Structure formats: structure tokens, C-alpha cells
């Protein structure tokens, strides 16, 4: 890019593409264009990367709240109410404005690996998906082994579930089974075609499919359900992952870094104040004028009032480890339709423990969202919040007392006493916690989706990228990026078609499945016959479990 002289002086630079906003989609496009040799200038009005996808520290969050509530708000967010307790260190928090998890079998992960952007990031596993049923969080069975070992499913339910799982893995090929139900609600399909009962339907729809309602069309729903099931066992016993220190924003930053390596110039804290379509000159708030030879990609699309999601963030003084699987620091909890006094859309909760890097140890962040809007949306979020509070207090309390009569105790043949589990369940339900939960931060806000003001064609000089989606999982990012890329270059054939140089041979995210001990064994310990090499037997024997 033809470089400038001193800042502040009226100078005209040139670039091929000016990208306004460092959101995830824009950042992917920036990197894609840059690696194909395009001169890209990538700017963002915020002093941080990520735009609407960013994870903010508490100072940034306060500024964001003011901006969102001001008259000049041009973000997809609105109606932000923020409470922050005193004495919190602002830099110890990364509040994710639009948290997303990454299933292992999605094209975004493939792109992250292919582009080597995954090397800039640290991912952690997420295998705990719970459904709120009858006042408790039930972990959903996602594999054959889960179904086999379940103590609560009946034999016939196990069979029906397995039959459905086998079908859904290959559902696109088995059109005859579902084509009559294509646009019908998924709940109807599951009940009529597979004889599944309500609890299983609820779990499949809400926690496995992450769908807002069981009325979602069958064709859409089957794809989402398959995504979860086929994502299991790719890296381990979990279907999804998340990046540390924030989700979308960290990925965006990673792609920006990649774009910078490829030559993209970055300017944060810079606004685009004007653009002359005829001359192709853009004006920045710094006074700089940029001649844009190809296109401007802007994240400042108009918001639409058709769809909206209501969000709540709560930082609690509890580590919430009772909800995490072993070795994990996050969990997903879904409150299905009609479990919170009449909610017509699910409430999805992403629990991030301190292991996610988003908060200090001993605390956790609860991200709640629902597609119910406005006052109603907030109401349901508060009800869900109460349930979460009740549950974590109950599960984490240390002083648990309950009355047991002698008659309720039975004895095993080896002398161990056993209490009826029904009675135990009753006691748990009647348990009132002595302590209450301390909230360190509470934030509620609304988020709208965006729509492009003009039909973007190959002729449009300005094209718009979309705001973050409402789904809890990253969806459609690569497709959107490719669509924008095609509008600029006319093709998607060379999208990230780059031969990155490997610093080392082993460059993939396979940490979870790589057995370090097996590798150690398979290193060439092969001695040429008589060598007298003493092998350390004890070292290996110590791993044996008897």
C-alpha cells in the first residue's frame, strides 16, 4: 500500500479494499483477501478488535454501555443495563458480547486449522450439555455409551434413541424418511417417525440441536442435531470447544493477525466519516483520505426489527465446578420451552468458569440468551437466573443436613448402609440454602440482527457484513466470508488457497487424542539386538491400574 507521510497532514493513500469493523466475518475476509495479494486497510472505530463479537474488560464495557444507550448508537445492541460491584479489577474480566461455541465438525474449525490461525488461539473442550428438566439439570446422552450406561432411560427408549441416532448421522441420504415432514415441526417428526417421548424430544431439540423451539422445521433441525452427534469423538469425549479469553473476538483477532502478516494495515480507534462513490475516496475521522480502488466492506449495516435476542450476563462469586465435566471449565444449560412459566423460546445458558480466562478463579460468568424479546425476554432471563442460582447453591453447599429415619436405611450384603434415592431426591428438593449468591456484575441488553440496506451486487462499491448470529454455535461464518470475498474478487476458488510454510511438521489441533505416552513408546527405542540397553520397567509398570 502506498504509504502516507506524517499523520494529521492531508494525505491521500490508496488501498484496494477498505474494511470497516474488525468483527469475525470481516476479519476472515481481510485475511483471505490479503493472502491473495489484495491491499487491505482494516479499520475499527473501537480501540479494540472484534467489534460486536468482542470480549470487553470492565472499563471497555462501561464505555460500550454508554455508547449503546446513546442517540448515536450504530451497533446491533440496545437497551443496556449494567451493574458492576465495587472493587473489581477491570482487567481481570473479558465479558463476551456475543458468546459462541465451536463444534468440531464445522467448516470454521477447518478454516482455522488450514489458515494456521488456530496457532494464535487456545481452545478448551466443552462436553457438558444439560437440559433443565423437573427442577434439575440432566446431562444429555450423546453417544452409544451414554445411552447404554444410563440408569434413567427405559429399554425401549434406548432402542428408539439409538435408531434415531443411526438415522440422523446419514439423514441427507435418507430423504424418504423425512421428506414428508420437511417443513413440519421437528417435534412432530421425532414423535411420529421414531416414537420418541417428550423428554427425549426436548433434549434432542434443545441441548443437542441448540434450537430455540421444537417448532423448528425438520429439515433445519436435523442438520443441527447431526452437527452435535458427529462432532463427538473427533478430539475426545466432547462435541464442542471454545477459545480462551473470549470467543468471537479472539478468533477475529487471530484472523486480523494473519491478515497483518500478509500485509494488511490496521488502524483501531478510527472512524469512517464519509465516502464519495464517484471518486472512490473515503474520509476517516483522523482527516486522512483513502482512495479505495475496489470495495468497502462495512459492518455498519442497518438493523432490522424483525428478529431480536435478549441477553444477560451475570458474574457470580462461585466457581460452578459442579456443572463442569472433569478437566473442563464450561458448560451449556438449556431451559426448554415452557419450563419457566410460559416461555415460548428456550433460554440458553453458557457457563464460563475461570478456566476460560474470562474471570478470576473462584468466580464464573453466566451468559443467558433467549429469542423472547423486550420486557418479556428480560423476565424469562431473570426466572432462569433464579433457577441457576438455586441449583448452584444446592449443589455446592457444604453444610447439607437432612433427617433420616432408621427405617429408610437398608444394608448391602457387605454391610454398607444405603438410603433410598427417592427419599434423598425429596430432601434435595425441599432444601433451602442458608447462603445467598453474590453477584459481582449484571448486564442485560438486546441484540438485533442486521440487514443490508441495498442489494449487494458486483457493482456496489460498499458491501455490508452481518452482525453476530443468535445461535450459541458459530454458524455460517465461512459462507458469509466467502460471499463477501466473491463480491470483491468475483470468485471463491482461491479463498485461502495458500501454502503456509510449516515451522514444524505437527501443526494440527489434535492435543486431546494424541496419547503422549504412546508417542513416547513409539519413539525409536529399537535397539540393534545385543546392546545391553536397560529399559525402565518401573516407569511403565507404575501406570498400570490394579
Amino acid at each position: 500500500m502506498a504509504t502516507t507521510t506524517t499523520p494529521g497532514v492531508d494525505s491521500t493513500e490508496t488501498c484496494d479494499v477498505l474494511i470497516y469493523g474488525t468483527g469475525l466475518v470481516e476479519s476472515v475476509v481481510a485475511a483471505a483477501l490479503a493472502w491473495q495479494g489484495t491491499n487491505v486497510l482494516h479499520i475499527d472505530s473501537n480501540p479494540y478488535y472484534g467489534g460486536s463479537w468482542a470480549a470487553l474488560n470492565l472499563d471497555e464495557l462501561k464505555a460500550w454501555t454508554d455508547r449503546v444507550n446513546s442517540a448515536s448508537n450504530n451497533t446491533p445492541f440496545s437497551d443496556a443495563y449494567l451493574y458492576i460491584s465495587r472493587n473489581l479489577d477491570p482487567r481481570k474480566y473479558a465479558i463476551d458480547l456475543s458468546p459462541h461455541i465451536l463444534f468440531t465438525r464445522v467448516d470454521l474449525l477447518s478454516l482455522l486449522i488450514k489458515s494456521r490461525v488456530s496457532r494464535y488461539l487456545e481452545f478448551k473442550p466443552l462436553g457438558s450439555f444439560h437440559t433443565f428438566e423437573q427442577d434439575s439439570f440432566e446431562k444429555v446422552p450423546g453417544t452409544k455409551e451414554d445411552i447404554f450406561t444410563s440408569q434413567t432411560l427405559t429399554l425401549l427408549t434406548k432402542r428408539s434413541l439409538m435408531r434415531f441416532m443411526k438415522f440422523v448421522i446419514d439423514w441427507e441420504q435418507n430423504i424418504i424418511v423425512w421428506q414428508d415432514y420437511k417443513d413440519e415441526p421437528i417435534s412432530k417428526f421425532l414423535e411420529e417417525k421414531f416414537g420418541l417421548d417428550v423428554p427425549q424430544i426436548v433434549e434432542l431439540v434443545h441441548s443437542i440441536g441448540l434450537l430455540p423451539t421444537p417448532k423448528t422445521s425438520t429439515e433445519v433441525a436435523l442438520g443441527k442435531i447431526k452437527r452435535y452427534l458427529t462432532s463427538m469423538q473427533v478430539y475426545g469425549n466432547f462435541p464442542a470447544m471454545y477459545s480462551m479469553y473470549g470467543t468471537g473476538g479472539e478468533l477475529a483477532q487471530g484472523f486480523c493477525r494473519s491478515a497483518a502478516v500478509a500485509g494488511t494495515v490496521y488502524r483501531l480507534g478510527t472512524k469512517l466519516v464519509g465516502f464519495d462513490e464517484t471518486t472512490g475516496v473515503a474520509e476517516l475521522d483522523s482527516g486522512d483520505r483513502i482512495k479505495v480502488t475496489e470495495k468497502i466492506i462495512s459492518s455498519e449495516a442497518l438493523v432490522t426489527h424483525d428478529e431480536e435476542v435478549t441477553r444477560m450476563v451475570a458474574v457470580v462469586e462461585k466457581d460452578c465446578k459442579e456443572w463442569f465435566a472433569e478437566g473442563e471449565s464450561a458448560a451449556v444449560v438449556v431451559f426448554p420451552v415452557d419450563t419457566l412459566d410460559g416461555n415460548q423460546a428456550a433460554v440458553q445458558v453458557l457457563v464460563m468458569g475461570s478456566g476460560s480466562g474470562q474471570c478470576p478463579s473462584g468466580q464464573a460468568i453466566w451468559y443467558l440468551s433467549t429469542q423472547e424479546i423486550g420486557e418479556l425476554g428480560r423476565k424469562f432471563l431473570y426466572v432462569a437466573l433464579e433457577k441457576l442460582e438455586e441449583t448452584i447453591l444446592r449443589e455446592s453447599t457444604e453444610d447439607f443436613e437432612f433427617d433420616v429415619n432408621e427405617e429408610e436405611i437398608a444394608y448391602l450384603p457387605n454391610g454398607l448402609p444405603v438410603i433410598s434415592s427417592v427419599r434423598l431426591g425429596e430432601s434435595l428438593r425441599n432444601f433451602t440454602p442458608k447462603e445467598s449468591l453474590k453477584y459481582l456484575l449484571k448486564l442485560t441488553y438486546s441484540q438485533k440482527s442486521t440487514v443490508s440496506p441495498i442489494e449487494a451486487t458486483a457493482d456496489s462499491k460498499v458491501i455490508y457484513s452481518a452482525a453476530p448470529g443468535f445461535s450459541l454455535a458459530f454458524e455460517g461464518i465461512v459462507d458469509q466470508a466467502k460471499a463477501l470475498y466473491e463480491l470483491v474478487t468475483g470468485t471463491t476458488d482461491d479463498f485461502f488457497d495458500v501454502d503456509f510454510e510449516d515451522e514444524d511438521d505437527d501443526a494440527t489441533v489434535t492435543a486431546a487424542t494424541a496419547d503422549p505416552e504412546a508417542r513416547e513408546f513409539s519413539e525409536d527405542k529399537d535397539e540393534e539386538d545385543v546392546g545391553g540397553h536397560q529399559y525402565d520397567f518401573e516407569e511403565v509398570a507404575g501406570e498400570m491400574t490394579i
Partner: protein
Amino acid sequence: MHSVKRERTSAKAREERRRREAGKIVEYKALVDKVLTSRKNQNYTPDALSLTTTLLKQNPEYYTIWNYRREILTSIFLAQPAETIQSHIDNELQFLFARLMEFPKCYWIWNHRKWCLETSPSPPWKYELGLVTKMLERDARNFHGWHYRRYVVQGTEQATGKSLVRPEFDYTTTKIKANFSNFSAWHNRTKLIPRLLKEEPDIDARNFLDNEVNLITQAIYTDPDDQSVWLYHRWLITSDDIVKLSSDERKDLLNKEIKSIQELLDVEPDSKWCLQSLAFYKCLLASLAGKAVESSVVGYLDKLQDIDPMRKKRYEDWKVQL
């Protein structure tokens, strides 16, 4: 190999490959000749051992060479003190370990390992159990591993005088919970249960059996196409080695299981194993009760001929014998 695409190589590439392989074949044949001649000359020197090492690295399936290797080692061990022999055995075990990583299912490698243990002045049982556990972690369905495991457990028990039946039984439970499509794990269980019940007389054998039946039924309903779970079920229901059942008790058990399988057949009408098992158990029940076989069995066998045409004759045969 399954689902490996055949590459459309050009004639030139194929010719190139053939030339390369031809060279390797000549080399290999020369090595084999050398080794076999060495054996004919009764050469039992360390050099001969080295030759067999080279050859076995390329082809561990050539069992004659393993035989020769053992002849060499035996000769070397003659009139040697125990420490020297042990040191050689340690080297052998290490050599074998590397071979196992490459060829975990080669009979001769496992066999030679067993020979090493048998020849060893102080067999490292603890290490061996750790090794086989690791191998089964890599592939829980490797029946060589399971067979060797039984051998090692036996050796350990003899050396220490302590029974390992309980931890071994728990090990099979762990493996089954991780993936119940594991014939070897179920098979091992059948070997351990009779011993377990004998060594722990506090266990109520009938209760134990009922729990096992419940467990296998969960597996059957989860995956009725899995052969291993049906075979285990059959052993549970018909074996006399778990608990002594009276004729009436046996008949009751059969009836209960027939009912359970029938319910599964209702939702899975084309399940080969349901039909086969029902036919088998109903025949067994009939012979115990001294009555004629139920007419429904003919229906099962007819259906089986349809859905399992490869074994048509077998079912026909069965029908004739009813």
C-alpha cells in the same frame, strides 16, 4: 482394506513402482537365503542373531525365522549365568515391543514374547501387565492382547500367590462401559465370573446373575446388531458355572428372557439375532420341559431364511431337526 480408493496411476508410474519393488524383492530374497543357509549350517552366533533381527523387522510373520532365533538364543544361554540370560531377555522384550507397535496382531510376536517370559529367570510380570493394558488402550478389541493378558495374570498370580480375579473383573467392566462392542472383554468376563463367585462367597450368586442379565439386556436393546452381546447373553442364560439353577428356575429364566427378546422383536422385526435367539431358547425350553417345540419357531426360521439368505441352508437344516 476397506474404503481405500484405488488410485488411477499412469502406466509410467506403475512401471516405476514395479521397478522399485523388483529391486526390493531381490534384496529380500537374498536376505532370506542368507538366513536359511545360516540355519542349515547351525550357525548360532551373535551375527546370526543380527541377521534374523534384520529379516524379522521386515517380515515378522515369517515364523520359521522366529524358530531359528529361539534356537540361537537357547544356544547362547547354555551355561550362562542368570543375569546374562535376563539381560538378553530384556533386550528381546524391548525388540518385541517395537515390533508390537507396528504389528499388534501378529501371532508370532506375541508367541515369542511368551517364550521370553517362560525362559526368563525372573519374569517381569508387573511390567507385562502394564504393557498389555497399554496395548488394550490403543485397541480394546485386540484378542491377542486379551489372550496374553490372561497368561500374564496367571503368571502374576502364581508368582505372588494372590488372586487377581476381582481387579480383572472390574477391568472388563471398565472396558465394556467404554464400548460394549467388545467380544474379548465379554469373553474374559465369562472366564472370571465363576472364579469370582467362588472366591467371594458373600456374593449372592443368583442376584449377581440377575444383575448381569440386566446389564446385557441394556446392551442388547442399545445395539441389537452386535453379535458379542447376544453370545454373552446366551452364556448367562445357559451356563451352569454361574449358579446352580433347578429345572424350574431355569425354565422361569428362559421364559423371562424369551418375553424380553420378544418385546425387542416387536420394535425391530427384522433383527436376525432376536429371531435366532428366540428360536434357540424356545427349542431349549421345549427340551427341558419335555414338550414339543412351539410352532412360532418355524415362523422365526422362515423369516431368518429371508433376511439372512447366506445361511439359508442352516435354517432349513434346523427346521428339519425340530
